[in-house]
């Protein structure tokens, strides 16, 4: 069974790389303002931390071919570029469009095994919808991408036009690690270090999972898929138990739900495998997998070029052949429609 890698990072080496894909007025604006690239990429993936370092100059197609596509039959590119941080309602979306055009021209055009996530601006809803309609013309885009950090959970109604536009075009909603929205990254504000923020980074994902599970969007759009990228994911059983328990007492508040929140998670939300916040105790990773009721929840990712110790090896050591095949390929194939999108490349 082949492998599909659901989370491979790339990023323009410098803003100049985007110039060919930006309208002239914004190129000039970038030059005038001395734009050196989005700070959000550096605060999400600090250059001082080798585990997460994400440098455009070092992420080349040659390396992706050698280190990712050597094992995987296909890969999904995640070009996080901090577009959520731009309050400007025209400049921010123009940069998002440029990133997606750059991704298509510099990566997707050069290797048919590559598929893309299109970055969109959740803070500018109409522009995000327009960008979804534009990228959907290109079948190599199979998902949109927004960051985990957000001013309110993503099930909040203000975002629904974005998610429904994605559903209309058959695109998944990818939510990726980090982000920069100016709002505090923890429930008690700004802590003192990246170390603490990194530990707390799972919390924003938890907000979105709970929010999507109860908000009613899936009841309206059962064709929608949400993919959680780079979340650590072993927190999921505990979250499901808690939200399910609350829902049993509070279900009158969300009367559209036809089952417990965890049933929505299992139907509509998927998680990429790396990194894994692994239990220390013997046998406990298998316990977590059993607790997930993992039929089709996890999808393989290398998270290239991020370097985590032994997460995937430990996971696959716990899976039956049948489970491993689902994680390596089948779940992603269903989620992204790989049979159509990658058919030529895999054949």
């Amino acid at each position, binding site marked *: 069974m082949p492998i599909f890698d659901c989370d491979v990072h790339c990023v323009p080496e410098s803003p100049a790389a985007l110039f060919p894909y930006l309208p002239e007025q914004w190129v000039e604006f970038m030059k005038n303002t001395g734009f050196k690239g989005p700070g959000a990429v550096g605060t999400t993936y600090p250059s001082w931390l080798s585990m997460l370092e994400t440098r455009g100059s070092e992420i080349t197609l040659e390396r992706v071919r050698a280190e990712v596509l050597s094992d995987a039959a296909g890969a999904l590119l995640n070009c996080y570029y901090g577009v959520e941080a731009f309050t400007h309602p025209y400049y921010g979306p123009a940069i998002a469009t440029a990133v997606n055009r750059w991704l298509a021209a510099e990566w997707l055009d050069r290797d048919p095994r590559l598929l893309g996530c299109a970055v969109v601006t959740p803070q500018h809803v109409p522009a995000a919808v327009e960008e979804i309609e534009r990228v959907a013309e290109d079948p190599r885009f199979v998902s949109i991408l927004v960051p985990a950090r957000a001013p309110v959970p*993503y099930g909040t109604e203000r975002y629904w036009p974005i998610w429904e536009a994605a559903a209309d075009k058959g695109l998944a909603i990818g939510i990726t690690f980090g982000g920069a929205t100016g709002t*505090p990254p923890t429930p008690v504000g700004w802590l003192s270090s990246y170390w603490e923020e990194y*530990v707390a980074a799972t919390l924003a994902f938890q907000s979105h999972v709970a929010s999507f599970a109860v908000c009613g969007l899936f009841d309206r759009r059962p064709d929608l898929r949400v993919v959680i990228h780079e979340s650590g994911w072993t*927190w999921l059983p505990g979250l499901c138990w*808690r939200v399910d328990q609350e829902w049993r007492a*509070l279900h009158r508040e969300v009367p559209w739900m036809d089952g417990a929140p965890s049933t929505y998670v299992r139907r509509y939300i998927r998680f990429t495998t790396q990194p894994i916040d692994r239990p*220390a105790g013997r046998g406990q990773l298998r316990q977590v997998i059993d607790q997930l009721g993992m039929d089709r929840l996890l999808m393989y990712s290398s998270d290239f070029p991020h370097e985590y110790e032994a997460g995937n090896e430990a996971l696959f050591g716990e899976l039956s052949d049948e489970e491993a095949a689902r994680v390596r390929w089948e779940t992603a194939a269903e989620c992204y429609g790989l049979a159509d999108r990658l058919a030529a490349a895999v054949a």
Partner: protein
Amino acid sequence: LAIRIPEQQSRAARTKPGIIDCDVHNGLASPAALKPYLASRWYPYYDQGSHIGHKGQAGQVVGTRPAPHFYRKDAMPDEGVAGSDYGLLREQLLEGLNVVKAVLSPLDSTAWVPYGDLGAALVAALNDWMIAEWLDRDDRLTGAVSITVEDTAAAVAEIERVGSDARFVAVLIPIQTREGLGHPKYWPIYDAAVAHDLRVILHVGGMSGTHLATGFPTYFVEQHSGYSQVYGTQVTSIVYSGALDRYPGLDFVLEEGGVAWLPATLWRLDRTWEAMAAHAPHLERRPSEVVRERFWLTTQPFDEPEETRFVPQLLEQLGMNDRLMFSSDYPHWDFDDPARVLPVSLIGKELHEDIFRRNAERCFSFGATS
């Protein structure tokens, strides 16, 4: 589906030889009940509602809640709010459930203005009310000291004023503070708590300016389950800060935060500690070891797995059988019944006795209660 309600008598019998309840909420029957303990110069402010912190905008999802109030309906006395009538609390909790020691945390202060002279006067009045109307009445009752958490000097002064009364066993801090609880502004509170041999209880309440890692949610079901995020962040902040090294006698008790969020938080803390060792050299020990030595955890709301077989797994992953303590959250709507939660049939007699009595005896230095 028929629901069987056990008889009061058999319920008490099932909780023999007596249990300790670490999270019980007594409260003011009405605002007027505080006035005998409050200097009259504060009445105009109090009567006008100036004491309501955040002006009632403490992150509640407006208009949706589990009931007309947050209480068990059967715990409402004839007059006043649930938890305000000692007689009813004694009947339903102490005698009804055979509770031999209870830790009272009145939550009034967690909604009050958390700094300033008015705030300080109010918590002093509340602590005096606690002594006169509760601790003096029944040997089974112990309490947590209410403080103005965002006003360190006043908080320390209040701990020094009442903290030597041995019936106070803890300091009460609302979980949603303006800064992470590792912030040095809070350290003098920890210093005072240690000096008076008080644990530090972290309980739902307060106002940080936000609610989740992603601002305010839409629904109460999200908001209430989201408290686990606040607890996870506070544990992280405290562990990173070095406060636990500075104050060797400092022990935190996590109350009403749930349980199931903690194992994965420990795994994340440990992975971060390993991956970023060069960037936090002051953290000499594995965070999970530190948490298991310095934090206690109460059971309610026990976020019960959908399959019973996962409960022992959860407890194993938590690795805190010697630090987990029963709490009912009486008289709140999501009260956990000790006759139903974590039954002997599921966790065995020894562990049941640890969770329902012996761990709390050690945590709060109660000595043997049976």
